[in-house]
C-alpha cells in the first residue's frame, strides 16, 4: 500500500496567519477570540468570534485574484502558497498531471451569497431578486467547487480536484480524501486542506436559536472554554490550512522534509440526529479504532489527542466518552487538548487547521494547551492540557472531528520512521 507523507504545511488562522505565527500563538496559549468587528453584532445572541487579520496581498495573492475570490478561497490559496513553498516542490519541473487537489469547506461562499443577496433583494424585501445587481462572480459563491478550482488553477495542477463538504468534519475528510487519492495511485502529490470564512450575519443567526454558540459576550477572549465546567457553546472562527500530501517513497527519494505520515483515517455516521450527540461516543470511538487499525497501532502508541473539543455541553462529554472507549485506560495518561479554545471553531476549516497543529506538534514535540480551562467538569475527566503547552516527545497524534449531520471522523499522524518500509 502506498503511504502518504506530509511534506508541507501552510496556515491562515486567527491569531496567526502564517504557520510560524500560528504555532507560536498556540504554544503561548493565546486566545484570538474577540467581539465581532466584521459587522455590528449587537442584535445577535452570540456576538463574538475568532477573526483573522489577513492581508491577501502580503500572503502572495494578486490584485486580480483578490477581486474574484471569496475570502475563504483566499485563505486556501494563501495557505497553499505557504505549504507548497514549505515542501520545496519545484512546480516548474513537476508532472502537473500527477498533482491533485482535495479541499474542504462546510458553508463555502455563504458570506458573499448573503451580502450579494442584500444588494439584489433590496435589503431582503424582494423575493424575485434583480439579477442585474448581482456581482459577476456570484456563481462561485453558490457552488463551492470554486475552492478546488482556484487552487488547481493557481498551481497548474491537472490531477483530480475535489471539494469535500461534510460540514464540520470537512477538514479531516478532505485530507482523508487526498490521502486515499495517493493510496489509490490517482495522484503522487495532493494539495489538501480546508478553509472557511463564515463569520457573517446569517451564520451567527442560524446558530443562535439552537444555542450552539457561546453567548459569553462580556468575556470574549475566554469565551471558548472546551471541557470547562462553565462552557456554554462554541465560538465561531474562520481560517484555513493546507498540507502538501506526497507519496512517501517519492518524498524520501527527493530528500524532502517529512513532517510525518498519515497513518490512518476513518469516518463514521452516528445515524442519530442532525445536531444531537449521544453521550456514549460510540461512533466516534469506532472511527478512532478503525484509524488505529490501519496503522497497526495500539492505544498505548497514541501520544497526544487533538480533540474536536468544540466547547458545547454535549460535544465535550460525547468526545470524552469516545476517547475513553477507544483508548481505554491509556486515555488518562496522555495529553488531550482543543485548540478551538484559541482559534475558535471555523466549521469546515478547523479540521485542517487541527491537522496542521498535529503535524507541528509532532515536529516540535509540544502539545498545545486548552486555553481558558479553569473549572474542571466531573463529566470530562481526562488530562486536557489546561492553559499551558506541554513539552513531550510525540510520535503519534490523533485528531478527531464531529459535525452536524452526524459525521464523526478521526485521523492519525505518525512519524514516518516508526514503520519499517512496506
Amino acid at each position, binding site marked *: 500500500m502506498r503511504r502518504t507523507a506530509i511534506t508541507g504545511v501552510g496556515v491562515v488562522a486567527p491569531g496567526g496567519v502564517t504557520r510560524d505565527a500560528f504555532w507560536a500563538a498556540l504554544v503561548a496559549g493565546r486566545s484570538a477570540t474577540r467581539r465581532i468587528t466584521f459587522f455590528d453584532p449587537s442584535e445577535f445572541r452570540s456576538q463574538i468570534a475568532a477573526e483573522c487579520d489577513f492581508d491577501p496581498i502580503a500572503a502572495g495573492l494578486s490584485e486580480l485574484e483578490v477581486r474574484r475570490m471569496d475570502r475563504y478561497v483566499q485563505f486556501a490559496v494563501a495557505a497553499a502558497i505557504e505549504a507548497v513553498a514549505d515542501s520545496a516542490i519545484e512546480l516548474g519541473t513537476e508532472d502537473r498531471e500527477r498533482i491533485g487537489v482535495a479541499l474542504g469547506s462546510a458553508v463555502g461562499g455563504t458570506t458573499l*451569497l448573503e451580502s450579494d443577496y442584500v444588494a439584489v*433583494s433590496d435589503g431582503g424585501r424582494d423575493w424575485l431578486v434583480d439579477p442585474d445587481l448581482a456581482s459577476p462572480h456570484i456563481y462561485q459563491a453558490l457552488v463551492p467547487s470554486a475552492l478546488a478550482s482556484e487552487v488547481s*488553477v493557481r498551481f497548474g495542477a491537472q490531477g483530480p480536484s475535489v471539494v469535500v463538504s461534510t460540514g464540520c468534519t470537512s477538514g479531516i475528510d478532505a485530507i482523508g480524501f487526498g490521502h486515499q487519492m495517493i493510496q*489509490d495511485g490517482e495522484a503522487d502529490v495532493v494539495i489538501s486542506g480546508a478553509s472557511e470564512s463564515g463569520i457573517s*450575519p446569517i451564520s451567527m443567526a442560524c446558530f443562535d436559536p439552537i444555542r450552539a454558540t457561546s453567548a459569553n459576550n462580556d468575556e470574549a477572549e475566554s469565551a471558548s472554554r472546551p471541557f470547562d465546567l462553565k462552557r456554554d457553546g462554541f465560538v465561531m472562527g474562520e481560517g484555513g490550512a493546507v498540507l502538501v500530501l506526497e507519496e512517501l517513497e517519492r518524498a524520501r527519494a527527493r530528500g524532502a522534509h517529512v513532517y510525518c505520515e498519515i497513518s490512518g483515517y476513518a469516518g463514521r455516521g452516528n445515524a442519530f440526529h442532525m445536531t444531537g450527540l449521544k453521550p456514549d461516543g460510540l461512533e466516534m470511538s469506532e472511527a478512532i479504532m478503525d484509524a488505529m487499525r490501519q496503522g497497526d497501532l495500539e492505544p498505548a502508541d497514541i501520544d497526544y489527542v487533538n480533540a474536536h473539543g468544540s466547547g458545547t455541553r454535549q460535544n465535550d462529554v460525547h468526545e470524552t466518552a469516545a476517547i475513553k472507549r477507544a483508548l481505554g485506560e491509556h486515555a488518562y495518561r496522555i495529553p488531550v487538548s482543543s485548540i478551538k479554545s484559541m482559534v475558535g471553531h471555523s466549521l469546515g476549516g478547523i479540521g485542517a487547521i487541527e491537522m496542521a497543529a498535529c503535524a507541528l506538534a509532532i515536529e516540535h514535540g509540544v502539545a498545545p494547551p486548552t486555553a481558558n480551562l479553569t473549572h474542571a467538569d466531573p463529566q470530562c475527566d481526562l488530562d486536557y492540557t489546561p492553559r499551558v503547552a506541554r513539552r513531550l516527545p510525540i510520535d503519534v497524534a490523533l485528531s478527531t472531528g464531529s459535525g452536524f449531520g452526524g459525521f464523526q471522523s478521526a485521523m492519525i499522524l505518525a512519524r514516518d520512521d516508526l514503520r519499517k518500509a512496506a
Partner: protein
Amino acid sequence: MMTTLPERRRRAVITGIGVVAPNGIGTDAWWSATTSGTSGINRISRFDPSRYATQFAGEVDGFDALDYISRRLMMQTDRWTWMGLAAANMAFDDAAFRPDDYDPYSMSVITASSSGGNEFGQVEIQKLWSKGANHVGAYQSIAWFYAATTGQISIQHGIKGASGVVVTEGAGGIDALAHGRRAVFRGIDAVVSGGVEAPIGPYALTCQMATGRLSSVADETAYRPFDERASGYVPGEGGAILLVENLESAIRRGAPTIYGEILGYGATHDGHHPWAPPPDASQLARAIKLALRDARIEPEDLDVVFADGAASRAWDDLEAQALHEALGDHAAAVPVSVPKSMTGRLYAGGASLDVASALLAMRHGVIPPTVHADRPIPGCGLDIVRDVSRSADVRTALVLARGYGGFNSALVLRRISTPDITNDAHLEAR
C-alpha cells in the same frame, strides 16, 4: 510517471436506481419519457420568471415530498434534500434492500451537491434582513449546508459507515459514485450514492445566470447540445440516487437486479482558468483515457457515450475533440447522446442521472436521444443519437461530465450478464 493501480478483489455494482427528473418521477415514468424523447423543459412555474433572461428550466412538476417523508422532516429540510430522500427510498425499493437488515457500519452515503439547500437559505436570509436576527429559524443550520442530504439519508436509514459529500459542480455525480466505489474497495458493502440538485429558485437562478452560460431562448428547444444553434444550457432540478454494492454481497443477498459494474474512473482538472475554456481538450481526453485504462478496456469496447453536452460552441467543440483524441477512429463510430437535453443540466444530479440512463440502455438495448439537436455542428465527426431513441446492444458505456471551473470526470460502466454472476470466477481478481 506510471500510476500504480490499486488492488481489486472487490467489485462495485449498481443494484438500485431512484430517479426524480423533470421528465418523470420514478424510474419507469422517467425512462419511458426519456426513450420517447419527451422533454421536461418548460417555462418556470415555481415563481414568476419574467424579469430573468433565462425563463425556461427543467422543473419537476408534481413532486410532493409528503409522498416520501414526514411533514416534520419536510419542514426541516430543503427541496433538494426532499428529492434526495425520495430518490434514495426509490433506489432501496428497486434493489429490494432493507438497510435495517444489515450491519449499520457496512453501509455508507456519498452524495454530490452543488448549490445545497439554496432555497431554504434564501428564505432565511430574507427573514434575517427584512425582519431581524431572531426571525431566523432553528433549521437553517441543518438545511442549507451541502452535507444536509447525506446526513439526512444516513439518519433516516440508520447508516453508520464512512459517508461523504463531494462538490465538483456538474462532475459531482460521477465523482460521488467513484468515491462510493472506493468505499466498496475499502470494505463497505452498500453505498447510497449519486446526486440531486434543486437550483430553480430566484436567487440561485440569478447566481447561475452570472456565468453567462445559460440559454435565453424562451421555448423548450432552448438547450441544443452539439447543435450549430447552441445558445447555452437550461438548468434543471432533480437527479438520481443509486445503490452501489459490493458484487459478492449483492449476489449473496439475492439482489433482484444487477444493472452493471462501475468498471473504470478517471478525473482530471484543466488547471487553466477558473471559468474560461482551456486551450485544448487534452485534460478531458486524459480523463477518458484514464477511465478506459482503469477499466482495462479499449476504445472499441465502448457501445455508447453519454456526453456532457454544455451546448456552447466552444465547450461542445472541446468535448468532440476530447472524444476524438481519446477514442481515435472509434469516436466517429460510437453513438453519442445527451439526454439531459430533455431535463436541463442538473448540476450535481446530472451525471448520476446519465449513469442511470447508461444502465437502462444496457438493460433494455435502447439509447435515448438528444432532442432539438438536428443541426449538428459542422465537422464535429460524432454520431449523435438525435430526436428518436436507437436500438443497440449496449454492453459497455462511457459517461462524461464536466464541472464549472475545469473539472473533468469519466466513468465506464459494464453490463453484468447472468453467466458472469453464476460463474464463481467473478470473485477472483480480473
